[in-house]
């Protein structure tokens, strides 16, 4: 099915080929029939082994034939022992080797090899490892061979450092070997985790990997493999889950988290106090899933004016954090936590990042239109100090939209995400009202981190680039009364979530059919402006 080029042939040639095929087919059908007869009659013998072997040699994917061979070998090994059985297993390995030459991606043949080696008493793992080395020389990207290598390693357990060094060797052969980068990533976190700091990779190795991967990426900036690895190494920081904001009103109490959490997490880590008494109640996911960003807390404690409300949250380091609240107008209590999206690296790694930034900038001067250099420069800037370099980062992303047109949609969403992060930090520190309105020049195309604004009463998303695919995300706006989606690109309202609104503005969505609005009007009784 793959890679078979259609070739034009003369009538004569075609007739000859067809005849050849019909001959082959006859032989094939006879053999298959014979095999199935023998199996039905329980003649699981050497002849059947031979017959099935012949068919498999040219059709290694007929899985049932491998099953038959295992059945036969399972019977044989009850009676035959030692050298004789060993030879039979060797023959089986030989057959799989032959089949893998026909089709190096045959799942069946690879699996048969694993079966033989885990079934026989005398597997020669070193020989298998050498075979892998050979196969990886023939095709360094065959993922079946890599999987098989991992299988052997899991069985004979050589020192992992040896495997790590093997990836280094492979990469210095060819930096473009994504499979080797992948394997390296697994070895790296296994061999060198940062046990004290809780980061994925220990400091000196983090630095070393950054150096190595940059060297690789700069050797050939058009090859993508190293850039993916680099982006991962850059992102290898500690992440924790925090309670970002809680909102307590007489009607509803909600808790928003930085990541999706389950009921058990919320229940065990979060405690709401009213006048120094723990409030008990039931937790409900906002969307109705097992894990969610926003949790609704159903309780019967009356929420009135002049209460003392606070929340205790147990952080990952087991320390308990007390999040106080601010009172807003009519018996509404909102507690905002400190938020930061800045990645936390060690000092040594930050120094290395600054070095890399310098080299990136130099390379960029020579080739200002190099996508990967520009993208990496941008990400490094974001990693070092997202706030300080914000303007430059956004400018670069706009440039990337032009250089790398195919992925313009990705860059748009990244501009949105990083701009929202900027505004969020400010809003959480200084904004005293319950309004969210985009406060930067970019038009947003998606709604990242929207649960952070779950406390808002008014959400103004007018004059943006929002399409209907964002509508289900609005479900976190559980306290919103006034929502504007004026002048966006909505096309349908079929997936508009159920919200407790008073007013919804849908004006200026020119491709939105009137009957869609009528349907929404029938369903909900809030005011819809259009």
């Amino acid at each position: 099915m793959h890679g078979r080029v259609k070739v034009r042939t003369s009538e004569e040639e075609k007739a000859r080929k067809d005849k050849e095929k019909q001959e082959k087919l006859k032989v094939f059908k006879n053999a298959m029939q014979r095999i199935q007869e023998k199996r039905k009659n329980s003649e699981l013998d050497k002849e059947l082994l031979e017959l099935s072997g012949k068919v498999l040699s040219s059709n290694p994917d007929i899985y049932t034939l491998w099953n038959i061979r295992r059945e036969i070998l399972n019977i044989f090994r009850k009676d035959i022992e030692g050298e004789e059985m060993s030879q039979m297993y060797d023959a089986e390995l030989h057959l799989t080797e032959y089949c893998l030459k026909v089709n190096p991606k045959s799942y069946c043949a690879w699996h048969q090899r694993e079966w033989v080696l885990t079934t026989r008493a005398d597997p020669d793992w070193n020989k298998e490892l050498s075979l892998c080395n050979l196969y990886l020389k023939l095709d360094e990207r065959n993922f079946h061979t890599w999987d098989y290598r991992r299988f052997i390693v899991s069985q004979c357990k050589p020192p992992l450092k040896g495997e790590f060094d093997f990836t280094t060797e492979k990469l210095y052969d060819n930096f473009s070997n994504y499979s080797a980068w992948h394997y390296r990533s697994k070895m790296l976190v296994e061999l060198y985790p940062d046990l004290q700091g809780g980061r994925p990779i220990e400091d000196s190795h983090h630095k070393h990997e950054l150096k190595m991967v940059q060297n690789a990426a700069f050797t050939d900036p058009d090859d993508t493999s190293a850039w993916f690895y680099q982006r991962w190494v850059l992102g290898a920081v500690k992440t924790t889950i925090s309670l970002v904001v809680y909102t307590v009103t007489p009607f509803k109490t909600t808790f928003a988290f930085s990541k999706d959490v389950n009921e058990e997490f919320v229940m065990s880590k979060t405690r709401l106090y009213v006048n120094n008494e723990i409030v008990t109640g039931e937790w409900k996911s906002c969307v109705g899933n097992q894990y969610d960003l926003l949790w609704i807390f159903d309780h019967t404690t009356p929420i009135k004016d002049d209460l003392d409300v606070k929340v205790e949250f147990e952080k990952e380091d087991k320390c308990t954090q007390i999040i106080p609240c601010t009172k807003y107008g009519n018996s509404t209590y909102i507690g905002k936590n400190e938020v930061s999206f800045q990645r936390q690296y060690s000092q040594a790694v930050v120094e290395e990042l600054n070095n890399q930034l310098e080299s990136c900038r130099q390379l960029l001067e020579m080739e200002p239109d190099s996508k990967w250099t520009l993208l990496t420069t941008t990400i490094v800037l974001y990693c070092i100090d997202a706030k300080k370099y914000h303007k430059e980062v956004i400018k670069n992303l706009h440039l990337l939209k032009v250089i790398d047109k195919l992925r313009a949609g990705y860059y748009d969403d990244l501009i949105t995400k990083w701009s929202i992060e900027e505004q969020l930090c400010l809003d959480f520190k200084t904004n005293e009202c319950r309004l969210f309105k985009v406060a930067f020049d970019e038009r947003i195309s998606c709604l990242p981190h929207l649960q952070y604004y779950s406390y808002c009463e008014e959400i103004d998303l007018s004059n943006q680039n929002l399409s209907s695919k964002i509508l289900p995300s609005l479900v976190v706006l559980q306290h919103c009364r006034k929502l504007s989606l004026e002048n966006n690109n909505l096309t349908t309202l079929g997936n508009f979530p159920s919200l407790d609104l008073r007013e919804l503005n849908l004006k200026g969505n020119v491709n939105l059919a009137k009957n869609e609005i009528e349907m929404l009007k029938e369903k909900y009784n809030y005011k819809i402006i259009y």
Partner: protein
Amino acid sequence: MSFTTKDVVLKEDRPKSLLLQKHSDYLASYGLNKDDYEYCMTEYLRMSGIYWSLTAMELMDQSSRMPKEEIIEFIKSCQDSESGGISASINHDPHMLYTLSAVQVLAMYDRLDAIDVEGVVRFVASMQQEDGSFYGDKWGEVDTRFSFCAVMCLSLLHRMEDINVNKAVDFVLSCMNFDGGFGSKPGSESHAGLIYCCVGTLSICKRMDALHADELAWWLCERQLPSGGLNGRPEKLPDLCYSWWVMSSLSMLNRIHWVDKKSLEQFILACQDAETGGFSDRPGDITDPFHTLFGLAGLSLLGNTSIKAVNPTYCMPQETIDKLKLEPQILHI
């Protein structure tokens, strides 16, 4: 180490419009000649072949051209009464891959009553291992493809409670890689086909939250090459079936707009064979039902209105999924 991107160049005389009639003719005649060489040599995956053809026909609203009763009889005869599993063809052994294909075909025909459903549930559940993974059959091959087969199959039968869903999810998550993608087992390299299987599993189990959505979707959109086509791993050639594996995954991640739809559509259309009908893996290659389905399904995701809407998780018509009242998860953005 000078080096050029692996890609294809689309020729000027390539097909530029959708040849629906040709494809429907191609699939209707495929397998009519039971002595056709290709047909006979692919007997070991017949059940999936039927699923590819029928789904493609359904998407073109042409499924009446398939021999419905014959297909249902065939499926019945492929169920193993002992294990409950279904095989690729008569005289072959039951396997997860073909059990799923059979269930998908019967779901589209609304004829799940034709087989022993309890048997299927028993077979699928018996394949789950202590670590949550699934075997393909009793011989012990483990692969995330089989996890997907299991949850797809059981959700179509509304019998998810017969397996340990949390463990199934945990196993799939243990296959996540540095790039946010997934491979066939823990430690395996990311591959768009297996990403589809793993994201699909999480979509059915409603655990999409566990994904690193932005990292994964970025890796996926980087599969698009200048020709517009998509490859399945970095530095590989484009292949039409990845239009499905990548685009369906991006659809579940709600980030389909991260690839350039226009140029992908051009690539897909260029994979049609204007003479024989059907789609192939790359322009100029021989067509087959597998790529024909994924070409059509890919176009459907891109919004082509002459094809019925396809569900990105199940790769079946959306109307079938609606009828079964299934709601696989799609991420918020």
